């Protein structure tokens, strides 16, 4: 994860900005080469999408399901 993304995520956590958290953790997952690391970040994105009732939850769930993680 880049320093910039890390900072953006911390800021989103501080602000309780779930939209930014979903986007940030999805980006973090997309930049991983290791599937376990990617699923770690996808999990976070999925959880915040679930909490927010955000439609991205469906796609994130499908990506985790494809790896047998949900």
């Amino acid at each position, binding site marked *: 994860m880049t320093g910039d993304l890390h900072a953006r995520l911390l800021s989103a956590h501080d602000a309780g900005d779930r939209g930014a958290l979903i986007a940030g953790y999805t980006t973090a997952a997309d930049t991983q080469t290791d*599937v*376990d*690391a*990617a*699923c*770690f970040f*996808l*999990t*976070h994105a*999925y*959880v*915040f*999408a*679930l*909490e*927010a*009732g*955000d439609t991205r*939850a469906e796609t994130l769930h499908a990506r*985790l399901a494809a790896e047998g*993680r*949900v």
Partner: protein
Amino acid sequence: MSIIDPVLANVQKPTAQARGLPNAHYTDASTFLEERDALFGVGWAGLAVASDVPDRGDAVPISFLGIPLLLLRGRDDVVRVFQNICRHRGMILVDAPRKIEGAIRCPYHSWCYSTQGKLVATPHVGGPGFNTHDEMDRDTLGLIEVRSHIWRDIIWINLSGQAPAFEDAMADVIARWAEFDQPMYHGGADSRFSLTVNANWKLAIENYCESYHLPWVHPGLNSYSRLEDHYNIEIEGASSGQGTLVYRQLSDDAGNRFADFDGLSDTWDAGAEYLSIFPNVLLGVHRDHAFAIILQPEAPDRTVEHVHIYYATDTTDDTLRVRNAGQWKLVFEEDIFVVEGMQRGRNAPGFDGGRFSPAMDGPTHCFHRWAAQRLSDHRAAE
């Protein structure tokens, strides 16, 4: 064989000879806890009103006798009551009233629950990035639901889960007010208020259910509502209260009044009734409005009274409605000094629980008899 507690036996004597519950029932923390199980847990108690969660996803945490509960209107529009704790490590889930947009996420390890209480996500439960585990059956780990029932907008809960069905337990009360079993509408923000009283919850019940005090504590009623215009109501084991024969409708200068509830019989032209539903709900019905007071015991000597006023129509005149709420608030505030005074009186060593007027205190004694019986049953079962 159970041993009969002589103190409780005194409470259960005929009204003319009986004593009230002794001081410990008003001042002692361990007795307060005993009553949580014996008087609240076994049967149906009032928790809140459905109007507290008007929209889907509305969630209100409530500490009820120290028990963390969560009132929640689900995505399916059903109002439910859950224990407000995560099934993982028992963390409090919701710490302030708010709207649940999607799922309830535990702030500790982010286990997520649907608004129907189903466990829907267990992040990293099988290790980082692994969100399931063979030994973690989500279907068995939903939020713990508390049995509940809605009647007259009140959300009644049965903590033990063992009480008879609400309609059976309250059959006599429901039948008495069957004419009022029709739509009623919460008056909104200006028709709800809370009063904190430094007194045991039972004193609020005791004061509410009798008319004996009216001419002394509410002298404003004397001009038209004399003591002899009232009658006692005793529904053994469930409720007691009083009725009046001279209810006078509120009206403005132009003679406008609130609309009546539909189809009421002549009894209610000038009649009104006020019932304490044991253990902690106070209700009143009139031809044109009703109210509910839910007592939330916070400590042996502190109770919050949550007042809600209802009408027969969805819209009512703003000025009249505010006046009505103001009138009732004044009456309920006039009662505070007596319940707080009786509470302070319970610190007098050796007070024997007091006596009851055979003519006037039947409803109060009816409540004490109920409490004593429940306490006896509880102790016998231990």
